[in-house]
């Protein structure tokens, strides 16, 4: 597998940190400040944190540590993206379907991604979701989201 050039990975992450620091500091400009803030107001702290991030990011661009890592294997993201997608779907459908429906869908996908067959994935997701609902909602009294029809 190819690897990023010497220090190349560090430079890339340093640029991202640098960009984040600049954006963070810029966002700090929009904090509404009262007429008295003592010697250091709520926006100064943001500027301080942003400055350090920018400085260190810049330093890492100039002098990257001798770090190489294997280039991201985008094939693996064929496994990771469904997980990302299913968590997003879970949070979107939870208010409508309630915990049980949303969790069973999510768990089937997760179990499949980790190598279970359809039968195992379905059994595992239904069992664990029911146990979780029983434990949290019924025994501990913690609501996990009831969905539209139970509201």
């Amino acid at each position, binding site marked *: 597998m190819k690897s990023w050039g010497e220090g190349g*990975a560090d430079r*890339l*992450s340093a640029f991202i*940190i640098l960009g*984040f620091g600049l954006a*963070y500091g810029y*966002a*700090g400009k929009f*904090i*509404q*400040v*009262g007429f008295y*803030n*003592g*010697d*250091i*107001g*709520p*926006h100064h*702290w*943001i500027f301080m*944190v*942003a400055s*350090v*991030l920018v400085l*260190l990011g810049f330093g*890492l661009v100039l002098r990257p*540590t001798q*770090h190489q*890592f294997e280039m991201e*294997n985008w094939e*693996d993201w064929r*496994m*990771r993206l469904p*997980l*990302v997608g299913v*968590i*997003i779907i*879970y*949070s979107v459908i*939870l*208010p409508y379907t309630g915990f049980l429906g949303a*969790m069973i869908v*999510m*768990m089937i996908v*997760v*179990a499949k991604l*980790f*190598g*279970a067959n359809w039968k195992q*994935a379905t059994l*595992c997701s239904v069992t*664990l*979701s029911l146990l*979780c609902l029983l434990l*949290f909602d019924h025994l*501990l009294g*913690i609501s*996990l*989201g009831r969905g539209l029809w139970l509201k």
Partner: protein
Amino acid sequence: MLPGIGPVNAIAVLFPIVYTLEVPPATVMILFAGIYYGSQYGNSISSILLNVPGTSAAAVTTIDGYAMAKKGLGGKALAMSAIASFIGGTLSIFFLAFFAPKLAELAINFGPAEYTVLMVFAFIALSSFSQGSLPKAIISAFLGLAIAAIGIDSTTGVSRLTFGMMELYDGIDFIVVVIGFFAVSEILIMLGQKEGKQSQMQPLTSLWITFKEITESLATSLRSCFSGFLIGVLPGAGGTIASFIAYATEKKILRPNQFGSGDIRGVAAPESANNSASVGSFIPLLILGVPGSETTAVMLGGLISFGIKPGPLLLETSPDVFWGLAASMFIGNLFLIILNLPLVGLFAKILQTPRWILMSLITMLCVVGAYTINGSEFDVLLILIFGLVGYFLRRADFPLAPLILGVVLGDLIETNFRRAMIYSGGDIVIFFESNICLTLWVLALVSLFAPTLINSIQKKVHSQ
């Protein structure tokens, strides 16, 4: 015990449950502490039988532990690991009960400037002892501070970086950050790993250990307990360094030895040291409010969430938390040795649980945990975002412990820094005036260079 899971993830997924159930803080601390030092023993099972340390603190145990298991002495190694863990864990509780009140008396003179410098020392110590480069560790800490600054400013009540989103007004709960950066990023990493990479598990043999073997290892356990405790007290050091130093010291002291090829004292030394270090790490956590590791950083966040302010006044304001914890550690250690030896066969079987069951369960607990904190789907999305960021940070070798420390201490360090600046009229000399501040700066400098020395010890251990 399960490789890759570790005490941080266990605490992270359990925290929302105890928080929602409004369990008393002392009970929560006892639960978390039990997970923390219990995991030190649990790690040795996978280290000895699988040659896979659950966490870095158990890495040294694999050297002699796995060698013993290959010779058919795995049961003996596990029994010694339990006995040494018991000795290390129990003795260090007495050290904790003795030293903590003394340190609290000293720390009572801390003002805002001293607290600020103390937290800077904690950041430097944790960053310099983290694996990887120091600039990356400092960047990680400042990313944590950046996250902690989101929400209503506690001093002026002004909202910061909320972009009009109501969900961000209360700030980002530290446990959402922990679940995202540790648990979710771990799941993403595990998705890229093939299951076939697992090591062959060695069969579990008889746990019988002779009296002679115990007496031969007693001095090793006692010495390692003492050194482990001292290292555990230092913020940033902790179990990994303690076990490496104990192993290296014993290897030098004990001649002749068979360290590296299955010496039972090679199991006793790291196990006693890492248990002792885990107890020692409670001193800076409870008395100074400075966590020494990612696990204690999460515990600190937990304490703060429950309205308990760790620090020199903790012994007076919440004696139940401190003394309850000390007493529970003693009972916990006793239970560890009583339960672990007969149940080790069962624990070894848990290691063979199919990955799809384990990971499905962990994913479910992460999502449920994030949701139960505020009953908000927004937090579920946040753990996903932090998980993705955490994944890339880990790939790029950025340590995550300083980031968590930044999130946990962010509000405290900012408040104390601003207070100190107000007292001094904006003069930064206040951070260098008192003897306490100067001592802390010196300690911070020492901790900057200590990893170089410790690395050379570790290299020596590996090369021999």
